[in-house]
């Protein structure tokens, strides 16, 4: 019975998907004909466009026999907070326009999309005016809570993680060693716990932070890997996403910091009093700006760079066609992009690892116990124990 309902659900999902793709593709008769991407500038623009978030789920485009440009994909809901309150519509209403040509009138306001951003036109304006640097003069950005491609990626990964890990958790109820997919996941969970959480936070306190670290690790890793698929998600290459992640870490280590942490930050013991305020400023900047900023920029830059490099190497196919010939350019592009993609698979893991590792490290610094009455040897030097070595290290 369960099996039947499951296959029915899958069928329904596929049906809806096909239907909406079909509908979306055909609902675009007067869509802007951009043509195939072939020149260097077009490649550049395409890459720039790709690494941005997108309001519809675009799979591929082609030009049919009548010379019409067809886009295959499906629209996603647009949810925006305009001057007249919340407005929702499907992204198909923009007809793939990304240059402010198509104006959508909803809820008493006019909206248009320029470079993946939705603008609200000022009252009375009927079309967007641009200044010489291509900035809209009579429109302003709106708060955009749309289910964009990135949000969809986040939702998919979130649902996947919930399914995968709660089913792993369920397995433990009936058996000691998980089977199937759980057997793959279990060592990864153990890896994060034993190699990231425990050594950086310490044996005593790691437990309460491991949940966050595990979530973040798998979230970033799976999204990084998803970014390497032809669906072209670029979630971890969105500043907003990495900023949110970094701020989570910031909030956690700020609120779990113990007395010693604040003491060392605001009034550093063991240094001349005059230097202490200077150190406090540096420490504060480090804790509240530099650490989260390094986290968010590292992840964003690595993933964006990866996407740009892979796409640029794929574009060799077009850009070097004249000098190398079709076969040469294609071969070169395939070989190079293949190897870079392999490296990107490594980077996907590495960045997830580094983000989680540094988060654990920062949390570990905030909760570390500094006992000031160390054991002293005969000469009055501190006798270092394992915990001290760890503290010195971090």
């Amino acid at each position, binding site marked *: 019975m369960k099996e039947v309902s499951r296959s029915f659900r899958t069928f329904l999902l596929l049906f809806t998907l096909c239907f909406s793709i079909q509908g979306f593709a055909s609902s675009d008769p007067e869509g802007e004909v951009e043509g195939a991407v072939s020149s260097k500038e077009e490649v550049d623009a395409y890459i720039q466009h790709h690494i941005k978030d997108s309001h519809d789920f675009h799979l591929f485009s082609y030009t049919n026999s009548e010379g019409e440009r067809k886009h295959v994909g499906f629209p996603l809901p647009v949810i925006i907070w305009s001057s007249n309150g919340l407005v929702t519509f499907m992204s198909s209403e923009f007809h793939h326009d990304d240059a402010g040509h198509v104006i959508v009138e909803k809820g008493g306001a006019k909206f248009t999309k320029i470079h993946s951003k939705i603008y609200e036109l000022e009252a009375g304006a009927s079309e967007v005016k641009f200044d010489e640097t291509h900035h809209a003069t009579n429109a302003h950005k709106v708060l955009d809570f749309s289910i964009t491609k990135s949000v969809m990626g986040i939702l998919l990964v979130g649902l996947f993680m919930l399914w995968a890990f709660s089913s792993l*958790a369920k397995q433990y109820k009936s058996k000691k060693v998980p089977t199937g997919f759980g057997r793959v996941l279990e060592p990864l969970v153990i890896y994060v716990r034993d190699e990231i959480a425990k050594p950086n936070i310490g044996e005593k306190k790691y437990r309460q932070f491991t949940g966050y670290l595990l979530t973040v690790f798998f979230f970033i890793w799976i999204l990084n890997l998803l970014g390497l698929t032809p669906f072209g998600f670029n979630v971890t290459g969105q500043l907003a996403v990495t900023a949110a*992640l970094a701020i989570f870490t910031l909030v956690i280590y700020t609120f779990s910091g113990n007395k010693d942490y604040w003491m060392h930050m605001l009034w550093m013991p063991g240094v001349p009093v005059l230097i202490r305020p200077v150190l406090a400023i540096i420490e504060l900047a480090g804790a509240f700006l530099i650490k989260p900023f390094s986290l968010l920029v590292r992840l964003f830059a690595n993933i964006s760079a990866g996407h740009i490099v892979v796409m640029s190497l794929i574009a060799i196919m077009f850009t070097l066609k004249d000098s190398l010939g079709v076969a040469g350019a294609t071969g070169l592009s395939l070989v190079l992009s293949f190897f870079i993609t392999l490296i990107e698979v490594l980077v996907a893991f590495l960045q997830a690892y580094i983000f989680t590792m540094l988060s654990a490290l920062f949390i570990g610094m905030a909760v570390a116990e500094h006992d000031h009455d160390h054991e002293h040897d005969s000469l009055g030097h501190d006798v270092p124990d394992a915990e001290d070595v760890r503290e010195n290290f971090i």
Partner: protein
Amino acid sequence: METLINDFSPGLFVVQTILLLGLIFLLVKFAWKPILTSLNEREEGIQGALEAADKARKEMQNLQADNDKLLKEARAEREAMLKEAREIKEKMIADSKEQAQIEGDKLLKQAQAAIESEKKAAVADIKNQVAALSVEIAEKVLKEQLSNKDKQLKLVEDMLGDVKLN
């Protein structure tokens, strides 16, 4: 930098924050907590089982050692018993030999003594018989010789003559 700031979408930031918060909450509740608990339990179980196995092995070793000791002791005991038995045997043999010797000697001595006394008795008897015979013979001779007076006188004279000579 300007494009970066321009690219930053506050809406996406808010959505991501809410979704991540929800995800962390749900995963912690339904996945990480039970998983980590089970992992810890399992690890402790494994640790316990290993320790128990270690203990059992040690006990086995102790038992083995005990067994070896017992075996050794038993062997030593057997050895000792055998030795003792051998000694007893030898002693018995020696003793019996000695006893036999003594008995033999005793018997021999008794026999010798019996023989001696028999001999003595026999000799005494012979002596008596000889004496009786001699007396009888002597009587007969004397009777014969002293049948007349002359012969008696002659004899006395002879005897007296012998005494003088002595």
